[in-house]
Structure formats: structure tokens, C-alpha cells
């Protein structure tokens, strides 16, 4: 097989699909909520993939990227994709404090997506608290963090670690079983959303926090993305109706685990879709190759969002 036909492993189809789901969701919210003049805040890194989507899909112009690493900052400035992207050098806690007081953005709704490589820890918790306290009304807050169970300690230590980092929302009787493997990501997603809701209630945000996003995805390591809307009081019902509509796609029941396919495989499967019946394993075999049932199901569900590029490796 020619190496150029292999989809580069580093493109992370799970992450790509998850990102597309989120942005599709926010685009749907733009039909319902007062999100004109939306600004985007995130960790653009040197790739700015989410920034490109924010600009193209959501029509966002003013965007702010946070980069703490010295060399990363230099490269980020160089790679900044659009004239209206501002790159800030520093830790998220410090940069966010600056942005809250920035006249350009403090009265406009934010879409802020902090995509951490690492696990939910005290720094993530503090950032979440800070965002919920300070972002303007109708903002959308998202975080992504590492959900791998081992990142939270050895099996017997994990419940205590989780209770420590999530505080009051974590039940006192959290079981070891709830902190293992697949259940760990579910536990983390639920507690993170509970934490955000509790923060908004404690800080008496008039519209509270409406959970809107909850996606577990996995390429090499399981990741958790959660988030929601901090609406004005008057927009609460609109927000809740939008996220409880049957076509709201940001609460997938199963984790997004997308098979790594060659370009030929992806194109061949795609040619069978869309279809109302399930794409069966027999059909796949008749097409000339084979995949696990879950992989076929995932492809059928998410084929529209698959990364559609190849990279010449050799």
C-alpha cells in the first residue's frame, strides 16, 4: 500500500469529529441566542484549527489565543491565521484576567474553549471558576481535559483525588469502580458539568449555567469535553429548549472512537452513505475489507465529519 494513502495518525479523527460536533452545535445556537459579535478565546497552539473553524463556520472575527511556552508563543504569532487573531503570552489564569477587562471584549459574548492536554486539576478548576464568574452573558464555556484513569492516581487513590479536586459536588461515597477505564470518563464528565452548574449558582449568575456539551472521545488517550451556556435570565428557556431539541448533537451517548482508516477505505465506505439501514459488516466485507462492528457504526454516524485529508509521508 502506498504510504501516501494512509491518513496521518497524528490527525486524530476522534478529536476532529468532536471539534466539528461542537462547532456545529454553536452554529445552531447562533440561530437562537443573541450571539452577534461573538469572540473566540482558546489555546490556538501553532495550528489554530479551532480558530479557523470559528472564523469560517461561525463568522467570528476577533479571536484570542493563549500560549504559555516561550518558543510556542513565537511560533504562534508567526502562524496566526488571520489579521484579527491576537496571541497572548502567559498562563491562562493571568491572560483571562486581562481579557475580562479588555474593552473590546468585555461586553460581547465569548466562545471560550480551553483545551488542556492534561487532567482536570486545581489549575483547570480555578480557570473554570474564573470563567464562570467573569465572562459576559450569553457566553459559551468549554473545556477539554485528559480523562485517562491513571492520570488521577492509582486505583485505590482515585476517588479521594477526584473528591479533592472537584470539592463538594463529588459524592462522599464515590466508588473505585466509578473511577476506572470507561466509567472514569463518564464520572469526570458528569462531575465537571456539575461543578460548572454549581459555580454559576454559587456566584448567582442570573441565568445560571445550561449544560450543552458533553463529549468523550479517544484517539490514543480518552479525552473529555464539557461545556455549556451562561445565558441572560431572559434567554434561559431558549437555551434549554435548544439543547434539549431532538436534533441537538452535542450529547452523544457513546464516546467518539473513530477508526483510523486509509483514504481508500474511507472513500469506499463513504460511497455507501448516507443510508437509513445500518451499514453492516457483511457489506464492508463485500466491499473488499473488514472492520469491527463498533468501528463501522462510528464511521456511519460521523462520516460527514471525518478528516478528509492525506499526507505524503514518504
Amino acid at each position, binding site marked *: 500500500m502506498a504510504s501516501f494513502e494512509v491518513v496521518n495518525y497524528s490527525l486524530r479523527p476522534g478529536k476532529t469529529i468532536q471539534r466539528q460536533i461542537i462547532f456545529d452545535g454553536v452554529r445552531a445556537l447562533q440561530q437562537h441566542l443573541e450571539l452577534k459579535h461573538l469572540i473566540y478565546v482558546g489555546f490556538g497552539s501553532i495550528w489554530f484549527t479551532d480558530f479557523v473553524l470559528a472564523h469560517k463556520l461561525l463568522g467570528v472575527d476577533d479571536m484570542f489565543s493563549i500560549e504559555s511556552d516561550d518558543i510556542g508563543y513565537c511560533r504562534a504569532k508567526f502562524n496566526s491565521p488571520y489579521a484579527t487573531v491576537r496571541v497572548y503570552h502567559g498562563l491562562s489564569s493571568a491572560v483571562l484576567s486581562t481579557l475580562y477587562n479588555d474593552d473590546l471584549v468585555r461586553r460581547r459574548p465569548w466562545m471560550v474553549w480551553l483545551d488542556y492536554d492534561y487532567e482536570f486539576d486545581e489549575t483547570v478548576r480555578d480557570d473554570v471558576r474564573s470563567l464562570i464568574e467573569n465572562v459576559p452573558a450569553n457566553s459559551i464555556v468549554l473545556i477539554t481535559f485528559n480523562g485517562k484513569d491513571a492520570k488521577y492516581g492509582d486505583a485505590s*487513590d482515585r476517588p479521594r*483525588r477526584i473528591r*479533592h479536586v472537584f470539592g463538594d*459536588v463529588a459524592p462522599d461515597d464515590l466508588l473505585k469502580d466509578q473511577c476506572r477505564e470507561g466509567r472514569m470518563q463518564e464520572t469526570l464528565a458528569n462531575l465537571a458539568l456539575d461543578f460548572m452548574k*454549581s459555580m454559576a449558582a454559587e456566584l448567582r449568575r442570573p441565568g*445560571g449555567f445550561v449544560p450543552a456539551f458533553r463529549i468523550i472521545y479517544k484517539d490514543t488517550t480518552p479525552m473529555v469535553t464539557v461545556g455549556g451556556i451562561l445565558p441572560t435570565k431572559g434567554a434561559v428557556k431558549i437555551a434549554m429548549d435548544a439543547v434539549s431539541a431532538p436534533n441537538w448533537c452535542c450529547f452523544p451517548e457513546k464516546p467518539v472512537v473513530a477508526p483510523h482508516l486509509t483514504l481508500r477505505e474511507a472513500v469506499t465506505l463513504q460511497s455507501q452513505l448516507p443510508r437509513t439501514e445500518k451499514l453492516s459488516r457483511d457489506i464492508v466485507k463485500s466491499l473488499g475489507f473488514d472492520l469491527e462492528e463498533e468501528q463501522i457504526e462510528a464511521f456511519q454516524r460521523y462520516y460527514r465529519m471525518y478528516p478528509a485529508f492525506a499526507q505524503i509521508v514518504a
Partner: protein
Amino acid sequence: MVVVGADKKALANPTKAFFVNMITRDITLEDCILDLIDNSVDGAWRCEGSLPMGLAVTADLSKYSIMISASPDGFSIKDNCGGMTFDDAANHAFSFGRHADQRQDAYSIGVYGIGMKRAVFKLGADIYIRSTYREPDATRQTFAVPIAVPDWLKNDAPPWDFDIVEAEALADDGVEIVVTGLTPGAFASFDSPAFLQNLRRTIARDYTLHLNRGLKIVVNDIEVPGWPIELRQSAEFAPMRIEYSDHQDGLDVKVEVIGGMSAPPPESADPDEEDDGEKRFGWYVVCNGRIVLAADKTNMSGWGTEDWPQWHRQYSGFVGFVLFTAANAVALPLTTTKRSVDTTSEIYRRARRHMREVSKEWIHYTNVRKQALEEAKQKEAAAAAVPIYAVTPQSSVKLPILTSRPVQRLANVNYSVSIAKMRKLARAFGDINLPYREVGLSSFNYAYDDMVGEE
């Protein structure tokens, strides 16, 4: 010109709005919910024959349940604890304050007659209270009291009363209260998962004596388990457990005082270190079976008063219970909120003497043990946990006598590192939750062994 005469009067009529405002102001939402639970618990005790609620009593409350539902859409509490009679509703339960001739349930906790009203007004604007009960001839009766608060507030002219209407019977004899049109405070709180978890924790702690007797309390479909209250006992550790009779305003009160080690003292007394368990230590004051002051470390229970040191983390591990039981709740050392102790109460002050004795013994022990840590830890590990009901009577607390070693001069080290690095090193030493001090000590010992080697 103002003419003053016998017929000139300054109006002093109360308004309903003022009353509602005053009674709801100084009590928290959580405490209001506990007031409603108290009423249900009193109902259960009434059904069981109004027994005194000391520790030695073996009453079984497993027939009784209290179901609570709290969400931004509304609040409800429903029990099967016998219900409120029509007579109670018509003449007592809805008046603000108790009439002089009103019957006081023996060994109940409600004293000031405002718990239910205060709670429902604090919760919301549309209230529906329904009761099903049995008459003496065993016929079942049901009635309801609907209250639309905004409408009720409009007319201040006496009499202040509420309609009692017919209603469909509840499945079990009991009371159901449903509140919708929540107040902003109730709405925000019930929307907060943290508030609901804390409510569960408070119920688990404050009603532990009832829950351990079988009472079932369910919040949003999840049953609340009682906290197990245990003290450690061995040949060298024996909690104090005494009992005596006292009097307040001519009324009899039984007092029990129990105190001792519930868990070994902490490794580190540093205030920076967090310890989940610290929430459980300190003094508990119980009135007619209900914990009114829990895990207290303040001067309310005596710490920091009358040659009794202020609480310090070093004293963690200590649990003390002082239980007051009286047929007439007026004799109990309660504040109006029932969430705190009336420290001016004579019977409470007299009990404080015993509380101080056992606390000071414990404080002395934790000081002495610093000089003989290994020996202390061994003895502490050998003491077995015993449920509080089963603690043997003992006139004063018994704690080990330790052989202190000569004190070495020590160097104290204090430095800061990133939390992420601290956690990673804690993990490498075997436990991601290892306290910072332990990680520091372990890393010092590790480097010392590696680079110096000698003892």
C-alpha cells in the same frame, strides 16, 4: 396644629409582608428543609409512642420514610409519619407562635411553632400542604391547606388564616408539602449540584442517630446513609461516657456526655494540609435525638474559653457527644433556628464542665504524643472502633501514658513548588493524595539516603 387626645393612636398593626420577611431572613434554606424533616421525624416518634430519645433507646424507625425532591421546578417533601390532624391544622400548626394552652408533644423538637411556616415561605410562592391521618376511631381523614403567597400577602386585616380544603387521600398516613414558584434563592440553590450534595451531607450528619435506627430519608431518589459514629476502645483507650439528670426551669432533663478518640490524630498539624476527615471531629450537641450542633470546634462548644484552648488541627480525631433529652423541648438548650445551641442555658453550661474535662485530657494527650510518636501510633492502631451506642460507661476518659523521648532540635523546611509537580512526585512515592508535608519528608529522606547514606 396637632391635637393630642385620648382618641389619638399610633398604628402598630403588623403586616404579613413584614412577618414573612422577618421569619425567613435569618435562617438558611438548608436549615428550613431540616425544619420540615424535624416535623416528619417528630411525627414518627409520635407514632412510636413519644419515647425519650437517648442513646440507650432501641426504638426502630425502619417503618418510616421521608422523600424529598428538590429541583428548579419545585420542592416537595412527603412522609409516612402519621400525618397532621385537622385540629392541629385548624388551631396550631399554621399560627405564628405557640398558644399558651397548646399541647407540646413529649420529646419533640419543635418549640417555637414557626418551623413549617418559615420553611414554606422561604421556599416559594405556591404552597400545597396535604395531610392524611387516622382519627381515634381509625377512620382516615384527609385535608389540604393551599397557600398562594402573593394573594395572601395582599390583605393584612385579621384574622390571619388559611383555607382548609378537601383533598384526595395520600397513599400512607402522613404529610406532603409541595412548593412551586420557587423564590430566587431556592431556585438557584436547587439548580446547584453542590448545594444538593451538601444537603445530603448535612442530613447524613444531623440525622445520623435516626438514620442508624432505620429511618429512611431520600433526596432526589437517592437514599441518604447515616454517618457511622464510632469511638475507639481498647485496654488503653476508653471514651468517657456518663449520664446524669438535671433540671431547667423546673423541667427534667437527662444529660449524657460521651467523648474520646474517633480516629488517630493527624500526621501533620500544618494548617495548609487538607483533611477530609476534619469535618467530623469536635463536639456534637444533640437535643431530643437531633444533632443541633455538629462537629463544632468553636467557642460555642467551649474551645477557646475558660482555660480550654482553641481548636487546632492537632486535636483532630476527637469526637464528643452531649445529649439532652427532655419531655418538654422548652427545657432544651436550643436557639430559635434549632440549628445552634443557646450557650446561656444553665444545663448546657453545667454540661460544659464535663465537656471541658474530656477535651483537655485529649489536648494533653496530643501534646505528649508528639514526643513519643511511634509508641502512640502503635497504641492508637490497636484501638477498635465501637459504635457510639455500645461505648462502655466510664466516668472519665482513659488515654495511654506515653514515655516521652528527649526532644531533638529540629530544622523546619518551608518551600513552594508547582501543584502539578507535587502531585506527580506524590504519585511516584505511591499515593497521589499524599499530603504535601509527607512528600517533602519523603523526598528529603530519599535524597538523604542517596547522597549521605548514614543514619
